[in-house]
């Protein structure tokens, strides 16, 4: 296809009007007859043995229909390794863990009932610091030893000593990869630099809090409406928890008001289902904002040790990283982070000698979760801060130093995967040019303010997945209905997928209808996370369209006594190639279905490369002002450029970058869940500081750029995913700009005013 009609164009969002006018339906907009309201009593202790629970007073309150405790739990548990009971049983392991559930006729009565439940606790020693919890003989948090966990494939073939479950009982999972000879690498380096970076906990702060509504069905199953990124995973987990056949749990994910990795943990759903099962009535559970902060699977606190070696000529020569990840009291999904975080150090720069160790450690803090970038924010901050310091140590420009070490097309990266459709150099060049890298800023100071500039590069991978299915239904009137299992979490996938279907059928985007996010009626999709949807679901939708078209042409060819390959489709009409008059209307040959999967795509890719991942790369440059009296940092101007193969919808891509700016500035300067002895002290938007539009640059001070667009051979129309790295490069660029402005190097996040002022005082 030479000329594209819809793909590559900035068509407006297909759900824009609904969302802007407030008619779009989110989970909490739904209510059912006889519905009850569910609330959760949560533990005030980080670690305690539960004694007697007296629910008699609460049960007697008029309007209360059920009060449940851990004794009423279904058989199964939550979390990747199924370690979290739905309601705490013998012990509570973090402040905020569910201890009892109430269903009542109104929310007010449910809240009142919580106050009437009397729980006896016997406090137990608790541990909050992951490095402390990792030590041998530390207070044991985890009940399952990691010997019960899947083995660690990367260790196979390496004779690396690793502590046993008995020695480090709180280590859930460890991950290791290596390349070359790390010790030799450091010996051969001219400069070796080592630092420790500390990252605190942050929240996704999706505008829509977690919410689930469960309706018991006559066949013993459930229908569950939920704000959930991955309805098919939820269906599977819920069926395991309640020991039901998978199809008996139907999960419907309507529009989702933001997810960012925070809506992947069947949150709220098992509680609503337990209460629905007991009462025989629909039950809705909506998290308060406080509950989102306390039990919303926030991003992990991490400590990163990083040691780098570099040659005098600028070649990055050796890098070893140790990451200690505080996964909280239960596994959540974070133990996968031990592996995924490594991308921040492996997909951008060529390094002959590399060593990686990561540990996921259980503590008595709230359960951690996945977060946009899945470890990228933390690791890229550490890596890019190191890149600045290394450049300075060998007297090289930070931009040139990065550029010379970037992978080029075809190079095999440290994950053993080929670099493809890479425009990292161009991205770096574009942001450097926009910010005026190498030229002096117009002014360097004004009153107490000092101006500085910083730059960063970043990359992230996304799994090329076989687990994405789509169906296409061509309606009588020429409407193209696509059914897919991806979820519209705000990222715009419905628009992208509409464009792809519209392109295949040569029809306006408005003629495409979508049905998505309902496990009973849409085909399976692995998940709308990790930059996956455009690439995987996009490919799948395209193939399903092609399959449907093939069937249409076969029928039409028979009807017209022609060959199928001589037919074309445009705007719902079938043409003979080269003719301007339509031969048939689409409705004339009504065809009910067609199917396609990405499996063939993956097999083709595997055959060619052995590829499991596609990678995106990008760069960020920005200018900050620092107030030397107060420590306040303002980002004045910011540019980002990211490669994404062929942009399916350029405006949507730019919007992804814009959104990364807000996320990145928040993480760099403001956001931090403060936990004191296990208690979250700022679980609200007054005390937890997310930047408003007044704290991020806007308008002419922002440039969200796309490079020329080298197509990815295997992506839909050459496209690939990239949204997750747009928030990862901001903090190191800010840290670099601060150094440029006032000569202080901030290693930890967030870079608050007080920390800046403290550092300024130390350097005098």
């Amino acid at each position, binding site marked *: 296809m030479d000329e594209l009609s819809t793909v590559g164009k900035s068509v407006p969002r297909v759900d824009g009007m609904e969302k802007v006018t407030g008619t779009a339906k989110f989970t909490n907009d739904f209510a059912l007859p006889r519905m009850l309201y569910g609330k959760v009593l949560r533990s005030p202790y980080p670690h305690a043995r539960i004694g007697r629970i007296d629910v008699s007073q609460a049960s007697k309150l008029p309007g209360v229909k059920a009060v449940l405790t851990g004794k009423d739990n279904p058989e199964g548990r939550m979390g990747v390794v199924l370690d979290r009971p739905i309601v705490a049983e013998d012990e509570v392991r973090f402040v905020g863990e569910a201890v009892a559930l109430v269903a009542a006729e109104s929310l007010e009565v449910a809240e009142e009932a919580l106050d009437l439940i009397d729980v006896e606790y016997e406090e137990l020693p608790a541990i909050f610091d992951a490095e402390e919890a990792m030590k041998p003989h530390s207070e044991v948090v985890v009940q399952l030893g990691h010997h019960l966990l899947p083995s660690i494939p990367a260790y196979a073939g390496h004779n690396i000593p690793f502590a046993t479950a008995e020695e480090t009982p709180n280590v859930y999972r460890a991950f290791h990869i290596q390349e070359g000879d790390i010790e030799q690498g450091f010996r051969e380096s001219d400069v070796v630099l080592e630092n420790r970076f500390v990252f605190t906990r942050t929240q996704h702060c999706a505008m829509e809090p977690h919410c689930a509504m469960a309706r018991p069905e006559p066949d013993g199953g459930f229908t569950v409406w939920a704000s959930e990124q991955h309805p098919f995973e939820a269906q599977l987990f819920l069926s395991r928890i309640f020991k039901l056949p998978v199809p008996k749990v139907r999960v419907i994910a309507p529009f989702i008001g933001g997810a960012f990795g925070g809506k992947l943990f069947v949150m709220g759903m098992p509680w609503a289902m337990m209460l629905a099962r007991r009462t025989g009535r629909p039950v809705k559970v909506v998290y308060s904002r406080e509950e989102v902060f306390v039990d919303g699977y926030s991003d992990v606190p991490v400590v990163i040790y990083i040691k780098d070696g570099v040659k005098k000529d600028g070649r990055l020569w050796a890098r070893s990283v140790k990451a200690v990840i505080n996964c909280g009291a239960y596994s959540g999904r974070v133990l996968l982070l031990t592996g995924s975080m490594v991308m921040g150090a492996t997909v951008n720069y060529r390094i002959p000698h590399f060593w990686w160790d990561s540990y996921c450690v259980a503590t008595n803090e709230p359960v951690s979760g996945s977060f946009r970038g899945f470890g990228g924010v933390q690791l890229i901050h550490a890596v890019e801060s190191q890149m600045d310091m290394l450049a300075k140590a060998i007297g090289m420009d930070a931009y040139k130093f990065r550029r010379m070490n970037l992978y080029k097309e075809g190079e095999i990266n440290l994950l053993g995967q080929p670099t493809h459709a890479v425009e990292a150099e161009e991205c770096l060049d574009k942001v450097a040019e926009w910010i005026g890298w190498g030229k002096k800023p117009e002014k360097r100071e004004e009153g107490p303010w000092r101006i500085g500039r910083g730059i960063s590069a970043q990359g992230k991978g996304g799994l090329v997945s076989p687990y994405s299915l789509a169906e296409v239904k061509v309606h009588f009137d020429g409407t193209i209905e696509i059914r897919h299992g991806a979820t519209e979490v705000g990222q715009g996938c419905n628009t992208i997928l509409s464009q792809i279907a519209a392109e295949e059928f040569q029809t306006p985007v408005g003629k495409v209808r979508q049905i998505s996010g309902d496990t009973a009626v849409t085909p399976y999709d692995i998940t709308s996370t990790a930059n996956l949807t455009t690439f995987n679901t996009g490919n799948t939708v395209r193939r399903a369209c092609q399959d449907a078209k093939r069937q249409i042409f076969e029928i039409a060819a028979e009807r017209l006594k022609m060959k199928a390959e001589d037919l074309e489709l445009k705007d719902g009409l079938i043409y003979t190639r080269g003719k301007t008059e339509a031969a048939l209307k689409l409705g004339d040959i009504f065809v009910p279905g067609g199917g396609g999967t990405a499996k063939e795509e993956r097999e083709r890719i595997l055959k060619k490369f052995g590829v499991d991942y596609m990678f995106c790369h990008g760069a960020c440059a920005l200018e900050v002002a620092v107030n030397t009296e107060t420590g306040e940092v303002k980002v004045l101007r910011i540019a980002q450029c990211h490669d994404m193969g062929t942009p399916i919808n350029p405006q949507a891509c730019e919007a992804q970058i814009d959104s990364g700016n807000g996320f990145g500035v928040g993480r760099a300067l403001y956001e931090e869940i403060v936990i004191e002895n296990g208690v979250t002290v700022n679980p609200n938007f007054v005390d937890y500081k997310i930047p408003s539009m007044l704290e991020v640059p806007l308008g002419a001070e922002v440039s969200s750029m796309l490079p020329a667009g080298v197509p990815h051979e295997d992506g839909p129309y050459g496209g690939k995913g990239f949204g997750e790295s747009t928030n990862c490069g901001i903090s190191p660029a800010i840290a670099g700009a601060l150094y440029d402005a006032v000569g202080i190097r901030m290693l930890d996040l967030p870079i608050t*005013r007080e920390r800046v002022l403290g550092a300024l005082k130390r350097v005098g």
Partner: protein
Amino acid sequence: MRPFEYLAPKDLDEACSLLSKHRDEAKILSGGQSLVALLRQRLVSPAYVIDIRRVPGLDYIREDKDGLSIGALTTHRTVETSPAVAKRFPMLAEAEHRLAHRQVRNWGTIGGNLSHADPGGDLAPSLIALGAVIKVVSAKGKRTVPVAEFFTDYLVTVLEPDEILVEVAIPYLKAGSGGAYHKESIRAGDRPIAAVAAVVSLDGKAGVIKSARIALGGVGLTPLEAKEAGKSLAGKKATAGVVLEAGAIAAREAQPTADVEGSVEYKRHIVGLLTRDMLNLALTRAQSK
């Protein structure tokens, strides 16, 4: 939120009689910007909520002979955009401009703001420094209280359970006087790390300070007047050194506690900086008058 009975009096008399009947069991609702948050967190659980939004005659900004009078139901946005406020007390318009965000300012009223008595409230420091008074009424009668004496503890005022705040009256500044207010906050519209209002009056001959009042927000259980800092300036020539010294005194007079906005040391540091800056701005304004 716990259930409550909603009452909507048609006039001030009815509001007062409802309040004298229900006293501690009632809370007054005007813009709802403070009360609704407290209700939601169940920090207050009144049996009755008395909504005074329909009470006539409490939404005004009036330029009287000696000062400006502002009715309790006047919204922050009205004060922020009032030409009379801009002319008479630019510092007040500036304070309003950084009070939360416009949506809040469209709803929130000055009566609700002051009655709520948040120590970080944006109006109180300026009103204290300007020597404003608050008028309150009840079924039994009325009285006036200087804003400087209005706040007694965290979220507590001198208001009796049956009293309603109805007006704030601010005396005009004399010639040769000027004021300034600034809140330093982590984000625009946030609660303050610290806020400082300063009002100075110069003696006829240039450069000598006749009197100064400095008030602080967000650095104590209530808005505070930094009396010693104000006194330290009286009768002195307005030099950089004198101003800096006043800042140091104000920083000592502040009574901050550590929270997510900042540590005790940082808040005192900010009080010092802001006192210096607001005094300088107030002096410039005083000299131009």
